């Protein structure tokens, strides 16, 4: 919990109003007011807030191509579509109409992605997940002697003249397992099974 609050604080400190944050950044297909335009101020330097908020400066609609608008992204071939569907183990389109729909959707999604790719990310490490990236956070996550203590204790040194390290093996059978309270039977999730095995039909339709 502590880590998250640290993260949120850091995050909040960096965030400012959306309008000011993206100065100098031009989005290719935006139909609203272009950002980077100076916010209008009167002679005293005050902003007419009501006027500013009276119309949207940006619309989500800018992310997808308007009806009839020619997109600049290259056309996707039917072959590419089929390849992507196979990679994702998704069923191929039933007929030409469904395929046309899929291609259209994919095309507008690519339009959106191209928009995002306009952001200048030189020198920025991609975010993998929200974690504590401070020095203390890394120290907490570090695996050192303390963390390995349990594992090190499970080893013996064997021999006096020819010393070798050997991990102590557990030799329990099914009874020992049951005593530990592992009551979940993986085969209870099986649609098809034979004895203690899951069954897969590997044929062409499988």
């Amino acid at each position, binding site marked *: 919990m502590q880590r998250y609050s640290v993260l949120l604080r850091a995050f909040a400190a960096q965030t400012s109003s959306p309008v000011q944050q993206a100065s100098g950044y031009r989005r290719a297909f935006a139909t609203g007011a272009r950002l980077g335009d100076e916010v209008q101020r009167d002679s005293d330097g005050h902003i007419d807030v009501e006027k500013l908020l009276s119309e949207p400066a940006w619309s989500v609609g800018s992310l997808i191509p308007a009806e009839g608008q020619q997109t600049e992204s290259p056309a996707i071939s039917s072959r590419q579509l089929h390849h992507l569907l196979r*990679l994702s183990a998704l069923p191929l389109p039933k007929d030409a109409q469904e395929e046309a729909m899929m291609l259209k959707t994919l095309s507008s999604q690519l339009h959106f992605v191209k928009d995002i790719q306009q952001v200048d990310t030189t020198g920025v490490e991609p975010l993998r997940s929200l974690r504590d990236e401070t020095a203390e956070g890394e120290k907490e996550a*570090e695996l050192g*002697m303390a963390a390995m203590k349990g594992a090190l204790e499970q080893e013996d040194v064997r021999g006096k003249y020819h*010393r070798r*390290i050997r991990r102590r093996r557990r030799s329990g059978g*099914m009874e020992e*397992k049951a005593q530990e309270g592992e009551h979940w039977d993986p085969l209870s999730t099986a649609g098809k099974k034979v004895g*203690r095995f899951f*069954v897969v039909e590997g044929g062409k339709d499988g």
Partner: protein
Amino acid sequence: MNSSKLRTAPLHLSRALHSSVPTSSRVPRACIVSKWLSSRNFTAAPPLAQESIPLRKHLKDEAKRKKAEAKNNGVVKEGKGDPRLDNWELTVGVEIHAELNTACKLFSNAPTEGSDGVANSRVAPFDAALPGTQPQFQVATLLPALRAAIALDCEVQRKSGWDRKHYFHWDQPNGYQITQYYEPFAKNGTVSLLASDGVPATDLNGADSINIGIKQIQMEQDTAKTTHHPPSTYHVDLNRAGHPLIEVITLPHIHSPQTAAAVVRKIQSVLRGVDACVTGMELGGLRADVNVSVRERGTEGTGSSYSGVSGLGQRTEIKNLSSFKAVEDAIIAERDRQIAVLEAGGVIEGETRGWTLGAKETTRLRGKEGEVDYRYMPDADLPPLVIGSDLVDHVRSTMPELPDETVGRVQKQYGLTVKDAKTIVDLDEGDRLEFMEETAELVTHGLGDQSLDQLKIGKLVGNWILHELGGLLSSNEISWNNMPITPTELADILINLQNKQITGRVAKQLLNGLLEISTSPRPSVDRLIDDGNLRLRPLSEEGYEALATQIMDESPDMVAAVREKGQKGKVMWFVGQMVRRGEEGTVEPEKARQVLERLLGS
């Protein structure tokens, strides 16, 4: 009587047929009798086999015959050099997947052993990819991985990541394998090979050893085990799914199939020596994939490069080789195929190929079009792996002796040959070597200030443990764990032997006897010697001469053979006779031989 239709066998043959000699010793004049009988449709007993040739003679004759045949056919041995290899150079890279020796799996706490091998009994919800389950890195699995990295001389990276390698297969419930593609935990290692490891001289180029670079070592998950039930059904056992593996990737520094097999053997023995990976290739705990390419000597191939090594030809990958011999054979077959294609003017495609035992050529599994797009991406569920330097230092300082060092030490300290040293280090997970070292120390101690050369003691002990004891164990089919003989007992036998208290023959008998005694407390060797009256009562010089003369008188023809025909080997026959004839524990073969040579020489 030359009647055209003779209905009865001729008289001289009937005597043979009605002979009263029992059938077991009847030696028919095969041609005449059986031919006659079969020509009249009488069944003949199969002709008795000829007097059986002694096995050794038979084997020798076979070998001679084969050699003569080969000479006639003009067969050139591979070792003499395939002429094509003068023009073409082979380059091989090896990728080894080895199962880590851990108590639980890599990202779940399901155990890796126990439950008597019942299928699907060691499966956690994450291993079965139940929706919503998350991986949890099991810290204990880092220890053997770290040992493996340090034993192979790698630089351990402080921070490394976990990536997903996506592909669909029924042995991969999650739809992706968690591996370390972008940031492995160890890089830039080496493995050294000597000539005695099986590296051909052409690779050594005059040096004592060669170093094969290791690009990286990474941790990853194993897949489930599937068994095929024809025609198209598969049974899946998830016990193995999620088991930790390390993948060791070598650089393309290998230039012959024998070296490649030697690399795999060496890496397996290093991993076993540090208790990181203890299941070997024969049990399926270690698998190898190889990348093979050829180029014309002196050229840059097709200009391909891999990890800093450039000027290589197009490579193909051979997957899932499961024995050392398979590694060697598959590389030879693939090299020959590639050379044949290139010499015919074709082009090598970057494919994935497979190898089955006993095949002559590799088979194509996947072409470039079928190449899988793994869409590697960092796994968001797992934090990066951060390894503390205190742990790395601790593991480095408590590293056990590596197999190479042990073999070298055994050679130096105990005078064993390289082959014997390697054998004894490998046997019984090092327990046999431990036994030998303890025995050697006891013998040295027991012989006191006679100060026999330490190397001589070592050789004596080594020979007894490898050959005598080893022979007894295998002929009685006893495993090392069930062997009751203690180092003290063996040491006592050898001390008595060295002190000439007993003969070699008696020593071997004692060893045999001790193997069979299972009562406790076990009687000491000295007790056994005294009880059995086995102590050497050395025969006097006259005694030897008397016995020798007696035997010589009994077999004058053997004496003649030695004296006149100069067959010196027959002296040992006399020695044997003396030992057999003399009272148990009195005749020493060495002394007997000296006496006999003196008497026979005269």
